[in-house]
């Protein structure tokens, strides 16, 4: 089973912090990979938040293909960040040719474009780059979005963090998602590594999605650009989030109602019961059966954790004012946020959606059964 570690902070933090939390949960992952997404970037990225960041890995040939493609499409490089790779003796990570974190200026023709048009361009570009490098594995592209950097590599998370030089030269951010993989797919594919990203929404998941095929087919049939890939059965959680929020326009709490709808008699407690019944029918194919613990990030930076309706996977949320962790295990949380009041820790149960907004001042627990919100102030 994978281990998950996410931190929301009022200050910019190093991604090594959630990675070190992962290290404490090492019994749970086999070191077969690390996935990192950093959002709300600091340091050299702080003044460049409006420029989309392309996060990719390429071969030498793939690098030229990518460069040519981006030039051809009118993207101009605004800034580059390169990890200061550190290969130490005994390290098992196989270094690849190029790790790209490039910030681009939009093509000139997009100067007056709406945010929707820009979003569509970025997604299309990401998908086309992916397609260009898929056959010969020359390009692997993870995200292309403003203020977001993704890093993924096969290996022990701590080693991967040090390999990228994040201990000395980190990409700082206020929200960091880190996943330590427990490989269940045998052939290790970087596209199968969480977190998964689409147009500002991202998730990472613990568990196994038994309803994967019908969900994948349903998402694939919605006619939404970007609902492709699915090298992992967990990728659908990111796309369901995107579909719920962006395509359907539902408030975030309804993500819970989409993936784990209430029973008919339970709905009656909610003021929106009539809608819930309709949603349950219409979104039947997106119902999950678990076991899954999902940690996700909404477009506005709200980070949440929720569970499937019956099997559940380990997950805890807790912290102090300005710093909250979303972890698979308490030991990870204690590593990431020592000295917190543990009586404020929340272990989401089947009806809960636990949310923390940017700034991490409080923990909100939305109860699906009652449709009510309770707030834990972190002082």
């Amino acid at each position: 089973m994978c281990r998950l570690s996410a931190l929301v902070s009022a200050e910019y933090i190093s991604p090594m912090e959630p990675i070190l939390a992962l290290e404490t949960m090492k019994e749970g992952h086999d070191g077969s990979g690390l996935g990192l997404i950093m959002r709300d970037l600091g340091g050299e990225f702080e003044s460049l938040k409006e420029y989309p960041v392309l996060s990719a890995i390429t071969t030498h040939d793939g690098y030229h293909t990518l460069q040519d493609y981006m030039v051809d499409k009118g993207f101009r490089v605004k800034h580059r960040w390169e990890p200061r790779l550190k290969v130490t003796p005994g390290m098992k990570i196989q270094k690849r040719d190029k790790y790209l974190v490039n910030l681009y200026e939009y093509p000139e023709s997009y100067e007056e474009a709406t945010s929707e048009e820009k979003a569509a361009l970025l997604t299309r570009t990401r998908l086309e780059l992916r397609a260009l490098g898929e056959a010969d594995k020359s390009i692997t592209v993870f995200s292309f979005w403003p203020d977001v950097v993704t890093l993924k590599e096969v290996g022990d998370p701590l080693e991967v963090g040090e390999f990228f030089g994040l201990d000395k030269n980190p990409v700082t951010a206020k929200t960091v998602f880190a996943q330590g993989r427990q490989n269940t797919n045998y052939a290790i594919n970087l596209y199968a590594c969480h977190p998964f990203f689409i147009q500002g929404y991202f998730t990472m998941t613990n568990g196994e999605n038994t309803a994967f095929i019908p969900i994948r087919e349903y998402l694939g049939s919605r006619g939404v650009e970007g609902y492709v890939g699915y090298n992992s059965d967990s990728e659908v959680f990111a796309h369901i989030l995107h579909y719920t929020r962006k395509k359907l326009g539902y408030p975030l709490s309804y993500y819970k109602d989409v993936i784990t709808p209430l029973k008919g008699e339970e709905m009656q407690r909610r003021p929106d019961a009539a809608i819930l019944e309709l949603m349950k029918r219409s979104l039947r194919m997106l119902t999950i059966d678990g076991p899954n613990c999902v940690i996700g990030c909404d477009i506005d930076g709200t980070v949440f954790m929720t569970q499937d309706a019956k099997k559940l996977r380990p997950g805890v949320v807790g912290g102090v004012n300005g710093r909250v962790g979303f972890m698979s295990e308490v030991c990870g949380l204690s590593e990431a946020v020592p000295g917190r009041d543990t009586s404020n820790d929340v272990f989401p149960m089947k009806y809960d959606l636990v949310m923390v907004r940017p700034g991490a001042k409080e923990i909100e627990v939305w109860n699906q059964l009652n449709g009510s919100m309770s707030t834990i102030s972190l002082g």
Partner: protein
Amino acid sequence: MESAERLDVNHQLGLSDLPYVIQWNDAACTRCGRCTSVCPVQAIEPGVYERRVVESTGATPLPTTVRRVGSCIKQVVDINRRCIGCATCRQVCPNDAIVPVFNPRNKFAWHMNQGGEPYKRGGRRNDTDASVLDQLKFTRISMLTDPALDAGRHEFRVRTYLGRNLPPEKLPIKVEDGLLLPDGMPFIPPVREIFPIRIGGMSVGALSPHMWEGLAMGIAYLNEVENIPVIMCTGEGGMPPRLLKSPFLKYFILQIASGYFGWDEIVHAIPEMQCDPAGIEIKYGQGAKPGDGGLLMASKVLKHIAKIRGVPEFVDLASPPTHQTKYSIEEAVAKMVTAMSMAWDFRVPVYPKISGTRTALAVLNNLARNPFAAALGIDGEDGGTGAAYNVSLDKMGHPIASNLRECYLNLVKIGAQNELPLFAAGGVGKHGNLAANAAALIMLGASGVDCGKYIMQAAAGCLGDEHNRCNICNTGKCPKGITTQDPRIFRRLDPDKVAQRVVDVFVAADKELKKIFAPMGRSTELPIGMSDGLSVSDAAVAKRLEINYAC
């Protein structure tokens, strides 16, 4: 000594030509006459024999030849009175002195068209091979990373929807203060939440009053006591007026077919209905006899049937192959679905049922564009019937598995797999595996399945099988009293016992479905289209159905 000419019987059939041969035990038989009185086809009759016996009697016995006359049970060598293998004789025999035995080398197929009339029968396709449905196995078993569920103690929701589910993009919803609220009053298609196994259309008329009553009682009990919302289709021919105006109507799908039998009575009863029916099924085709309309032989049209159907007594009731008021199925779908919906003010799901066919996709695409069509029923070649030409039963039609699968995958392509539910029928439970066949079809993409023959066999002991046993549903002489209108026969069938068995069947199927879904980790929703759960050891089938090959 008879002349050689008189032994010339070349033009006659012999017992060895018949499909079933009676084995009668002279020593055990008491000559009570029960067997001959119950035989539905008079294939056996009391007879006398003359036997040459050698006897030795007296004080100084000398073997003497004598001729004695005795009584016996004789099998009739007449193809029109051939033994059908029903074994009712054996059932009533106090001494097990008689039994019909299947004759695999029979020549029945070559002689069943006497008088130029092709062979007609009831039942279903006489094919004893394992069906594709029975070859499918559930191989995605949850292990380690996803522990299996406990079928006995876990909470399962084994329900499906009959009715059109609006695509989420079209739901009339607005956001206010973080809540989703209704936006206006647009048309929301009616949807019924039901158990995914239904009883398919079998008409009043085809079935005896006791059989129909038993089914109806079982359905009502399942819904009201067992909380298993099983629904049943009436078949073509209306339904008893008392039931039409009862609160139990909601458990029935009213079928309208090309003969419109019973619909005058149904339409006139609408103002007095206490509730809406579960749905309206427009029958365009039947898997057992594609291209043929329904057929109720004159011998079954007794007074009570004539009244329900609104026809004279003792006339053949042959429905046309298609709905005569329409040029095409497209038009029929558009007009009939709308018209039937209007009759109940758009509160009742209305959907067509077709025979399995290579052209099913054309029908499906039409339905996908029709906002009032509530589902599509597809009836495969292994479906049953009360009366059809043997050639239709055995050779016409399309297997359900691939037909259903290609329809589902087409719906996936156009994003309507949840919008338009597919109901699959035709051979569900053919070899006794009701829940397994149903689960396999669901994982191939069906929202639910229909069964008919299985219910007749399980609930009332229907004798028919794929060795052409019995299969005389069309004649009105059903030995079990299931498909007859003759009160002397149907009084043998106890409706209470039928109802009890209907309940047994569905309670057991509910448990078996859970035993299938639990190890696969599924319990919250029906695993519709969960094709990764299925495997088959035939590579060609695996390729066609787009499922896993396992051996």
